[in-house]
Each structure stands twice: as C-alpha cells, then as structure tokens.
C-alpha cells in the first residue's frame, strides 16, 4: 500500500515538472537543443501570460517555438532571436527585462530599499549607543546623591 502511494506521489511530481507542450524538433547538436530549451524557457507567451512559450499550448506559443527553431537552424545567435521577438512583441516577451532607464527601479529598487533599511537601522543603533554613552557620563554629583538618599529615606522609613 505504502509503495503504491509513494509511486503515485512520484508520478504526480514528475507530471508536474513535465512540459505541457511537446514538439518533435530535430537538432544538429545537444548544444543547440540546450540553446533552444533556454530560449523557450526565458521567453514569455504573449497570449497566455505568466507562462513561458515552453509550457504554453497556445497556438501563438507553438508558432514562436517553430520560429525560434527555424532561426536556430539558420545559425542566428540567441541575442538576434530575442531581439527579433522583442521587435514584434515588445519587452513583454522577456522574462528577463533589459537594464535601461525604464527598468532601473525594477533592477535596483529592492537592493535600494534594503540599503535604506540598513541605513535606518545603523542610524537607530548609533543614536542609541550615543544616548547610552551620554547617560553613563551623567552620573550623579555628590550633592545629588545625598539628596537622593534623603528622598529614599523619607519614602522608605
């Protein structure tokens, strides 16, 4: 029974990682197949958003896969292929947006926020240390100590 459940779970896990779309393309070399895989996983399907064109079953994703396969066969570079698609569908098709003036915030925003956070933290720590230091130097003078003692005596007979 346990083995059966285990097998079912394994099957489920495998089916989830399997790609939805299956094409039968022949590649000249394993390197080219790898490039093809890399490209279709990094490019986004314009129709079914939030899926890359490797996973999508939409006709447009099929067309784009065919087009990428064709361009790879023609010996075009990854960059040329990505540029070709960006020229038609815009930066939207890239899961990895280019670094330019418009995407600065996207690329550096999180790191910037983290830096601001650390800055605030450092400021608070420095301030706290300083206030501890000043209070330490503010020890009571002998006259004050005497007065404190009398006050305490009064309260606590």
């Amino acid at each position, binding site marked *: 029974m346990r083995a059966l459940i285990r097998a079912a779970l394994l099957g489920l896990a495998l089916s989830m990682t399997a790609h939805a779309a299956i094409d039968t393309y022949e590649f000249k070399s394993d390197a080219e197949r790898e490039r093809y895989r890399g490209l279709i996983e990094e490019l986004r399907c*314009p*129709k079914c*958003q939030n899926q890359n064109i490797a996973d999508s079953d939409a*006709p*447009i994703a099929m*067309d784009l896969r065919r*087009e990428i396969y064709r361009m790879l066969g023609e010996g075009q570079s990854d960059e040329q292929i990505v540029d070709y698609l*960006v*020229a*038609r*569908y*815009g*930066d*939207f098709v890239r899961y990895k947006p280019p670094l330019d003036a418009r995407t600065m915030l996207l690329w550096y925003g999180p790191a910037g926020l983290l830096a601001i956070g650390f800055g605030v933290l450092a400021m608070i720590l420095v301030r706290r240390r300083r206030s501890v230091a000043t209070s330490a130097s503010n020890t009571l003078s002998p006259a004050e100590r005497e007065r404190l003692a009398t006050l305490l005596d009064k309260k606590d007979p």
Partner: protein
Amino acid sequence: MKRAIFLLPLVLFLGIAAFLYRGLFLDPAELPSALIGKPFPAFSLPAVEQPERTLGVADLQGRPALVNVWATWCVSCKVEHPVLNELARRGVNIVGVNYKDDNASALKWLKEFHNPYQLNIRDEQGSLGLDLGVYGAPETFLIDRHGIIRHKFVGVIDERVWREQLAARYQELLDE
C-alpha cells in the same frame, strides 16, 4: 523637522497604495505594441478574393486605414464583424488580414456576413501576423497614409470602442 521623519512611512504607504490602486484597473491582457511609430512590416501575400493578385505594403499606402486582423476560427471576430460593416458603410477604409485561416471558409464568411474590407490580405501561414506581433485575433492597427502604424487596439471593436478610442484618431490621420 523631526516630526516630518515620522510622517515618512505614511507617505511611503500612500505612494505604494496609489500605485496598487491604479493597478487594480489596468488590464494585464493589454500589451503595448512594439510597433507604434514604425512602418507596417513588408509582406508579399495574395489577396483573399483574388488569389492571383499579390499584395504588398505599397497597397496600404495613400490613405489612412484600419488594418483588422481576423479569422473565421476567431469567435469574437463574428461579434466585431457587423460593427466593421457599419464603419465601412460610413466610409472608413478597412483592410483585412485573414490570419492563419482557410481561404475557402474566409470567402464563405465574407459572402455570408458582408465584406467590409477594401483589401483582404491572405496570411495563411501567419507570417505577417508574426511580424505584426499579433497574439490573438481580433487586433486592429491604425496606419497613416504613409503606412506608419500609429495605434493598435486588441480586442473586439464595438460602437463604444470606436467612438471613444478610435474615431478621433482615425479622423486625425485623415486630417494630416
């Protein structure tokens, strides 16, 4: 000054809230076209009604046009079609791109539902569609008299879309 610093989180929160609130009303299916301001891509494809006639970019130039990407397999194109008929009746220059379709069904469709297209480009392989960045029919491009793409609309054109988004732009192109 010290007080102002305590207001900073509130200001940040309001800023982010404003962005997110705006995000609620954006349609993620609407992609900005990468082709606005660029010339209509070159093509050499037959006409739907006259297989022997080859159409090219030159056929689109001379007057502003609505380039409508359609197909018989596209359900919402059927909804859009009567609106296009009406626009054609009012004198709007409409050019069709029959996208990845079977030509016989396209001809039957045009015969049955009336033909609003001045020209109809037969893009059976979808090559022109790919160059246009089409990701789902119907899509409509507004091009000026020099064949430059000026605007793109994705989805069904109805009376309201025409009135609010396209009519003024088309008129502008006519007046240029």
